[in-house]
């Protein structure tokens, strides 16, 4: 399988994201990969638009629906929303969109900070396989994967993204991308 360059996918995502950003918009990255992407997109937006843009990070682990089966993920990834959520336009940033369960968990968490005006979802890749009526509003690319495969997004010390596909023996419909399960 020939994989696209994730930096190019990010360019495509950025081109769709930029016209959607206005004064009331805030970007929220979903740990782990979504936070890397949010920070990269934020930097470019702030430089292109010449102003600061509200932004934050969320960790789905306290709202996941598989806690009773899989337990608590103990990586330190504190959620941080340093702006007033009420009536905001919020664009959630995720790396790989798969079942929609992570996004469901994050939306629940966001509502504990306040009542957003509009929530949209941007994902670098939609790999197909949604199990909930949730889908990304903008994507870098649609790349379907088999259930036993998963994308893995990583970032090197120079801040460059890398994309790979891992194969497992059994299907893992719970895990979208390894970076944020």
């Amino acid at each position, binding site marked *: 399988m020939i994989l696209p360059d994730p930096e190019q996918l990010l360019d495509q995502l950025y081109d769709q994201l930029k016209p959607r950003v206005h004064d009331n918009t805030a970007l929220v990255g979903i740990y782990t990969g979504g936070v890397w992407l949010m920070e990269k997109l934020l930097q470019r937006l702030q430089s292109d638009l010449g102003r600061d843009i509200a932004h934050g990070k969320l960790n789905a682990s*306290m709202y996941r629906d598989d806690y009773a089966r899989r337990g*608590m993920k103990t990586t330190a*990834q*504190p959620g941080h*929303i340093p702006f007033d959520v009420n009536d905001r336009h919020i664009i959630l940033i995720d790396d790989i969109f798969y079942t929609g369960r992570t996004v469901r968990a994050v939306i629940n968490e966001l509502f504990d900070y*306040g009542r957003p005006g509009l929530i949209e979802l941007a994902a670098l890749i939609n790999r197909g396989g949604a199990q909930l009526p949730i889908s990304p509003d903008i994507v870098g690319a649609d790349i379907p994967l088999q259930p036993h495969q998963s994308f893995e997004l990583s970032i090197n010390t120079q801040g460059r993204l890398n994309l790979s596909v891992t194969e497992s023996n059994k299907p893992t419909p719970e895990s979208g991308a390894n970076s944020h399960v």
Partner: protein
Amino acid sequence: MYNPQLNAQGQLQHLLSIEGLPKRILTDILDAAENFVGVAEREIKKVPLLRGKTVCNLFFENSTRTRTTFEIAAKRLSADVLNLNVSTSSQSKGESILDTVNNLIAMHADMFVVRHQQSGAAHFIAQHVPPHISVINAGDGRHAHPTQGLLDVFTIRKYKPEMHNLRVAIVGDVLHSRVARSEIHALATLGVPEIRVIAPRTLLPAEVEKLGVQVFHNMEAGLKDVDVIMMLRLQNERMSGALLPSTQEFFQTFGLTPERLTLARPDAIVMHPGPMNRGVEIDSSVADGKQSVILPQVTYGIAVRMAVMAILGGGNAA
């Protein structure tokens, strides 16, 4: 070696004592606690992890503060909480500990938070509950108070992240203190290279050096260049016999005053597990001073207890 706190997969099943827990488990708890600190700052201070679970605070010894912090932690995780002051209920009618526990299990309790004046009480309960139930030791006699030890090291890590580079002094009534024991085990496991205890000979347990600490009987020598000062409460209620001449004399020799604080490093932090005896082990101006992190300890205590309950209450990922 058999460790009643861990299940067959090496995951935390009960939290009874920091002694014997691997560094990996302590670090997991502290890392998870980082994620819970922010919950208290949101509009809705609740997460749904323990929704539908029942947590029993089983207090055979009174402690309003510890019970309250466990209660807040469980409620912020959406659990139902049952507070039982057993000293004033069934036990006075002659019911055994296990009968009390079994009755609560028959009511589908999921987790027990146990405080008891006898060392080993939480271990005893943990050995007799079915595998789906977890027990947290909230203080047993002079033995252990693991969540207090964890919140203390969490607070230290917040202010002094380079733990392998620290000099820590624990000051006061080490003999009666389960907190001191838990702190020493937690600090040693997390790699703090220099742990000192400062106390009069009468308030130190026999062979305290075997815990890997340096012993001082003099504040001026013991506080020199430390990064962290952990004060202990003088436990009058646990003392029998004349271990001390008077509390005033204790303050003159071992109280933390502003003058003595200057012997520590200028950026040293001052901690106290509470409740404080102002003017006995700590001067008010130090307790309320800018180096004091005593109130942040209370705030972090909630996050650490939430992390412990969330780790114990979830499924076990294979």
